[in-house]
């Protein structure tokens, strides 16, 4: 009980909140990507593979150029490229979208493994470091809010901004309307003069950009290094966060906070000597995800045509 009281002390609560926000960064970004993709009608279980690829490419470029900005940029481009493959397979070649996602996930393991061993593992050059924490002038000094929201590194700021951007794009713009139409009833969208293929291509590739940015969080913001398999299933949890968040940006954000918070709290309880085996705590997010998809998700909120390949007749 003492431990819980410790956690509840104010300073710690702020720390916990800040840690939760940081840890939610890749989840939020991948979930945003996932929902752009699925709102247009394409299932994306490739988020994990996209993030892994981007984590690697971002690191490799930063490592070789000693430029973190270029690293971030490369991660985004790599995410777009590999998501492009998912788009081509599932849209042009009408491959089962889950099979296509599986291809991406396996391919990511292969490519990152092969190139990591060839270029990075044996290299004895100093790494590129991590993205710096920017304390925003003024805002960063506000008590409680400042340390949580305004003393972060680039990828976290970007994630926060993109939640708003994706929300506006999806619900306020022409593109968003067309995206939702393509995901709900592609044939109706086509008869209204919309190029469903184009909408889906763009959204799948955009999801690659978002998840790619999330991927470089691991190598360039969190660790400053690349390790094979370092995304550790976060792409799949992001998918669950998107579902829990009912395919909306704000919902996905809140769900990501919940999942990340469970992890952050687990780590803290450990520090305060709460005797729960760490493996049991480690299971929490996964158990929570199952509970969510099994029970908490309302019925029939998924885009009606998601997962169904569209063919012009």
């Amino acid at each position, binding site marked *: 009980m003492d431990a819980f009281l410790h956690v509840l002390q104010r300073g710690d609560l702020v720390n916990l909140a800040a840690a939760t926000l940081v840890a939610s960064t890749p989840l939020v970004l991948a979930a945003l990507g996932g929902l752009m993709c699925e709102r247009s009608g394409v299932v994306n279980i490739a988020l994990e593979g996209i993030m892994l690829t981007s984590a690697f490419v971002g690191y490799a470029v930063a490592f070789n150029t000693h430029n973190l900005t270029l690293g971030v940029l490369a991660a985004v481009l790599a995410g777009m490229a590999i998501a492009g493959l998912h788009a081509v397979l599932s849209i042009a070649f009408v491959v089962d979208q889950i099979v296509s996602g599986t291809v991406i996930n396996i391919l990511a393991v292969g490519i990152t493994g092969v190139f990591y061993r060839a270029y990075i593992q044996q290299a004895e050059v100093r790494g590129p470091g991590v993205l710096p924490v920017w304390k925003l002038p003024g805002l960063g000094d506000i008590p409680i809010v400042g340390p949580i929201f305004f003393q972060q590194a680039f990828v976290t700021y970007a994630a926060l901004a993109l939640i708003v951007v994706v929300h506006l794009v999806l619900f306020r*713009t022409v593109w968003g*309307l067309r995206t939702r*139409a393509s995901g*709900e*009833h592609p044939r109706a*969208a086509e008869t209204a*003069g*919309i190029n469903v293929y184009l909408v889906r291509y763009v959204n799948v590739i955009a999801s690659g950009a978002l998840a790619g940015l999330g991927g470089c969080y691991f190598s360039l913001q969190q660790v400053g290094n690349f390790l094979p398999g370092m995304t550790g299933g976060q792409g799949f949890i992001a998918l669950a966060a998107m579902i829990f968040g009912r395919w909306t940006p704000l919902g996905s954000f809140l769900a990501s906070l919940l999942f990340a918070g469970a992890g952050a709290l687990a780590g803290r309880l450990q520090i305060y000597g709460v005797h729960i085996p760490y493996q049991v705590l480690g299971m929490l997010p996964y158990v929570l995800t199952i509970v969510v998809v099994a029970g908490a998700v309302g019925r*029939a909120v998924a885009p009606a045509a998601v997962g169904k390949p569209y063919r012009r007749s």
Partner: protein
Amino acid sequence: MDLTVEWGQVHALLGENGAGKSTLMNVVYGLIRADSGEMRFDGAQVQVHSPQDAIGLGIGMVHQHFMLIPPLTVADNVILGQETARAAGVIDGRASRRTVRELSHRYGLQVDPDARVQDLSVGVQQRVEILKALYRGARLLILDEPTSVLTPQETEGLFQIVRGLTAEGSAVIFITHKLGEVMSVADRITVMRRGKVVASTTPAESSPADLARLMVGRPVLLRVDKGPAQPGLPLLQVDELSVLDDRRQLAVDGLSLEVRAGEILGLAGVEGNGQVELVEAIAGLRPTRSGRVTLCDREVTAASPRRRLRAGLGHIPADRHRMGVILELPISDNLVLGDFDRPPFARGIVRLLAQVRDHAAQLIKSFDVRAEGPQQVAGALSGGNQQKVVVARELSNGPRVLMAAQPTRGVDVGSIEFIHRQIVEQRDAGLAVLLVSSELDEVLSLADRVAVIYRGQIAAVLEGDEIDRDRIGLLMAGAKTDEVAATGEGG
């Protein structure tokens, strides 16, 4: 084939299901490429490769299955594809709502731009479709089977809208297979059969009987030969049944009915009044909220589909491809879908495939299924033959109650006659038949009694002389029984 449509006219395109009407119009609208031939619009030769091309020319189409996106608002559905946007692609919501409201007002369509399409009735959804076409500046409007989902009264409302459009100089192509509508709304009529134009005429120059002959290619039996029913004990009873639809709205609302051995009870009604939910609840495919279903004196309200099958229920489902046959499996397997795990088709868990094949060969013969053999996959058969497979299976289980939902939808004339004959034969053999059909003609020609369903309730059950097309039409539209009787006397 050739087709010429003039401005300011309603041009009816008449033909059976599968005659090529919809295909032709999909070519005109750019959804399908033509293999050869040319198209002229306003005298100039045009190429239409996509719906965009068609829209650009001023061609609009209202599809048989609405091309609306249910969770979006009316305004969003109307402007989709031709949105007015401010900077950065942000939709100007106020302007689009205003435009939609104005258009709706001008043509008397009465549609609220902020309503979600999924909350609207079918008739209003159709007006949203028309609005969509008008918003895109359509001068030639193609209506594909527009009345199949409407009440007779809604149909009359649609005709007025159509006349209003042609009065302003637009042209309307009206695709249908209903003769009565053609006679009342069309200025010109083109009859199609098997992808060819077989006649071009006007209502004044022809009669419904002529048109029917042209459409089908031979005189049709408008009535099915059947003797009077000899009803026995009730075998299917539905008491105070309430069922929810997929959106958790009450679709069947305290409905009661009863079907007796040796009679056909026809359930007439406009689609979407709870028929689908009622049929699924009787078949055990949808949970009930309250009420009872009794099958041959056994209560089956909560029983599994399998238990009902064993209790004597045969079910010809409305959507053949979704629920009737498994297209990828051979005919033989499709014919034992309900019985595959019982003797003589299985011993323990091992299937006895020779028996399954023999059984299939027999049924293929007695039900006149045109197939290469028992091992041919069901997907390779024509719609009519697939339906015969379903009918054969459901009747070979030895049912005492047959529930036939839209049994002849999308089926050729020969098969329709065969299936109708089968239904009557089964009635004569003592089965209780519940026939659910949105084709009023089918109900009128087969049923011994007619129950009219409206908003999940039975509006009236008619017998003998009471069975009258106009009366049923009014009941389908929600008129009360006493009102119907009054108009009956007045007219």
